[in-house]
């Protein structure tokens, strides 16, 4: 055993992430971050827009989601089938998605037909038709998704938690909308959502692959130059408003899903990295977290337990989830509470801090392992307002955190009395 311990300490000098990011400003003034990688004849592009489903107007919940679902269902002189045939003939890949506060388009183009693929994406972005037949067809799909979500334990728990925490605020509402709001959405609502979200002043672009900076500059103007400017609207202010406790939602599942949490910490907070490390030790990825050790490895109460920091524009949450059979979930919840209290009172150990730093700094460079993944990271960094040299400095920020920092943050951030558990299932003894 001893020799192994020495072996990994000697080896554990993290490699540096070698990601050579160029900032490209198009002739028309549109900015993107680029990594040139000519070894495979394709490029990946992530196009993120600030603003998402949380900007759906009152009563129009689900507008952004339905609109993004319709971008590939007809544009220019093409109906849905013609568009799909054109896209398949080019073997280009487009993915349209929307989250609470961000709207995301992921694209991949082959070098051999890049101009045609870009033209097709531009058509979807700038000339959507929102034809009545397409609207009805996709609306029916969304209604089916909503009905399924209403019987899915994970989704039931997430919705209930956010309703308790944020009341009527958009953060508490389903991105997909409700059966009532989706049924009432009109073609004009689609055009409105399109104009609201796909705006060139709120765009963040990451491009990686077989393309030069000059070629990308031309492409940026072509693709995005004609997009409108946003109206500047943002998500309304809100406060997290949920006291500690347990809410049981009776549903016929043999295994209960428990979603738990309290307020979190801002991504811009000077203590963010201390909180990030604390979370890794308490409930982060892998088998080594305290909660995985105590709930799964020691007691066999679950297949998976994890915690995570959620940062939104106007609210932060510190969340976790565990699923256990109905007759054992009460015990799992007790262990979570105990571990929360223990970490709040006693903090973490120097050994845990060291192991967390080794993991987090070693794992970081491994994220940059493919054009598509790097494109997403580049767009996300800009969306978070991180500097272009962030990748080179990020591990230093992790390493700079001291045990005192983490344990001070643990005593402030972890508030066992504020933990609220939403339990979906038929739990015994709660």
């Amino acid at each position: 055993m001893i020799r192994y311990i020495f072996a990994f300490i000697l080896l554990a000098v993290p490699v540096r992430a070698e990601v050579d990011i160029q900032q490209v400003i198009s002739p028309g003034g549109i900015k993107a971050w680029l990594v040139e990688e000519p070894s495979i004849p394709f490029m990946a592009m992530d196009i993120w827009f600030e603003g998402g489903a949380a900007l759906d107007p009152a009563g129009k919940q689900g507008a952004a989601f339905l609109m993004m679902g319709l971008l590939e269902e007809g544009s220019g002189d093409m109906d849905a089938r013609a568009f799909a045939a054109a896209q398949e003939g080019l073997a280009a890949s487009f993915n349209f998605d929307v989250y609470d506060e961000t709207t995301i388009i992921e694209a991949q183009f082959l070098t051999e037909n890049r101009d045609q693929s870009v033209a097709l994406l531009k058509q979807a972005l700038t000339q959507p038709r929102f034809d009545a037949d397409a609207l009805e067809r996709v609306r029916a799909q969304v209604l089916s998704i909503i009905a399924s979500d209403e019987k899915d334990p994970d989704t039931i728990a997430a919705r209930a938690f956010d309703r308790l925490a944020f009341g009527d605020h958009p953060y508490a509402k389903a991105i997909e909308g409700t059966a009532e709001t989706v049924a009432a959405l009109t073609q004009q609502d689609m055009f409105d959502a399109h104009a609201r979200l796909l705006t060139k002043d709120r765009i963040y672009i990451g491009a990686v692959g077989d393309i030069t900076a000059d070629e990308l500059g031309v492409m940026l103007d072509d693709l995005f130059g004609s997009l409108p400017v946003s109206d500047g609207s943002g998500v309304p202010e809100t406060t997290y408003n949920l006291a500690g406790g347990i809410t049981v939602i009776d549903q016929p599942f043999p295994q209960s899903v428990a979603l738990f949490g309290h307020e979190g910490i801002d991504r811009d907070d000077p203590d963010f990295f201390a909180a990030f490390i604390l979370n890794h030790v308490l409930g982060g990825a892998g088998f080594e977290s305290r909660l995985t050790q105590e709930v799964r490895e020691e007691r066999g109460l679950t297949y998976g337990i994890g915690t995570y920091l959620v940062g939104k524009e106007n609210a932060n949450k510190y969340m976790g989830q565990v699923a256990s059979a109905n007759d054992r979930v009460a015990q799992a919840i007790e262990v979570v509470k105990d571990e929360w209290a223990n970490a709040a009172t006693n903090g973490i150990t120097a050994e845990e801090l060291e192991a967390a730093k080794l993991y987090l700094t070693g794992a970081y460079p491994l994220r940059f392992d493919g054009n598509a993944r790097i494109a997403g990271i580049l767009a996300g960094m800009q969306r978070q307002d991180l500097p272009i040299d962030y990748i080179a400095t990020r591990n230093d920020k992790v390493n700079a955190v001291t045990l005192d920092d983490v344990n001070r943050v643990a005593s402030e951030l972890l508030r066992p009395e504020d933990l609220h558990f939403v339990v979906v299932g038929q739990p015994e003894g709660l």
Partner: protein
Amino acid sequence: MLRRLFVVLAYLSFHGTAFANDAVTTFDLDNGMQVVVIEDHRAPAVVHMVWYRVGSADEPAGTSGIAHYLEHLMFKATENLESGELSATVAANGGSDNAFTSFDYTAYFQRVAADRLPRMMEMEADRMANLRLVEDDIATERDVVIEERNQRTENSPGALFNEQMRAAQFLNHRYGVPIIGWRHEMVNMSLDDAVSFYEQHYGPNNAILVVAGDVYPDDVRALAEEYYGVIPPNPAVVERDRPQEPPQLSERRMVFTDDRVAQPYVVRSYLAPERDPGAQETAAALLMLAELLGGSSATSVMGQKLQFETQTALYTSASYRGLALDDTTFNLVIVPAAGVSLQDAENAMDQVIADFMISDIDQGAMDRIKTQLRASQIYAQDSAQSQARRYGAALTSGLTVEDVQAWPDILQAVTAEDVLAAAELVFDRNNAVTGWLTNGQEVSQ
């Protein structure tokens, strides 16, 4: 330099007969362990995988779930590692690790910086031969896999339905038994069951090492010989020869009712041949058939007819998974639109299939599918990990490296006649299971 050469080969392969777009090297160790190296020097990372030619379909009757349970137990103590130490060591090196079990294979992997590869091999080789299970680990981990079954299966009516469908599809083959195991057998899984499964199936002569990423074949060979080459072959390992299906003489039909179902649908599965070594043509035609019938909603035959023209369906699909050691399935799904009964949806689907059998195949559609398949070879190079998985899954499903590399060209060579012949072969209702998933309100419509 090497990288540039491989790109040139990839281009040529579209026109030639040999497909060589992957920077792939393969060799065998003296103890029978096969090694596959996939080079990708873009990032200083590596994925290290060991695949065993054993899965849930190799379990002895009455011990369903033992292959997957053993996969969990492989993270416990060995002669040289404490329980959990392997994962802790991977994490301390900034890596991540996990494992997965299927019908035909069990695989273990770590993703780490390339210079950590020797340590990964040392630990993986250790648990290949030196697992030391104790009763304490056994009981707790059995609870964990039962919770895994709760999460994946018991809490999901769709998963329970799928389990029942497979059980009906396979009259004699272990593919009809769920990988996770039947609950009543899982609760009785014992230390002896796990140890005897390990002793029967684990060893270098039943394993394939796949290393993908920032590595060179000569270096991998030297490391593999050092760490794995010293393990003697396991004499208990024998060629897999599982009970096969008898002729299936009657369609099976089921109605699975569960209040938790929000969206009813119909699934039809047909018994179908799998990709066979040196003879993948029928499988290629079946894959093309699936793409033509129900690949893309907006352009496939089922999607166009049922979702666009008649609007009978919210969603349709056809799928074929050719990677299997023994006979596999070809599946059709129709999710009816609101107000359409499951019977009407099933009838409409069958009418589309019947019409397809007597119509000309749309050559334009076939060309587009072939274009996408060709492009997928380019896009696939973006992920060393998914390439590693592709080889590992194929080699544990009875195929060779040559079969994997020949597959793209075999797909390109499929003709309309091949597709129709494959459809004639597979669409035999005596080989089929038809299942309705409902919430009970649907049947009375």
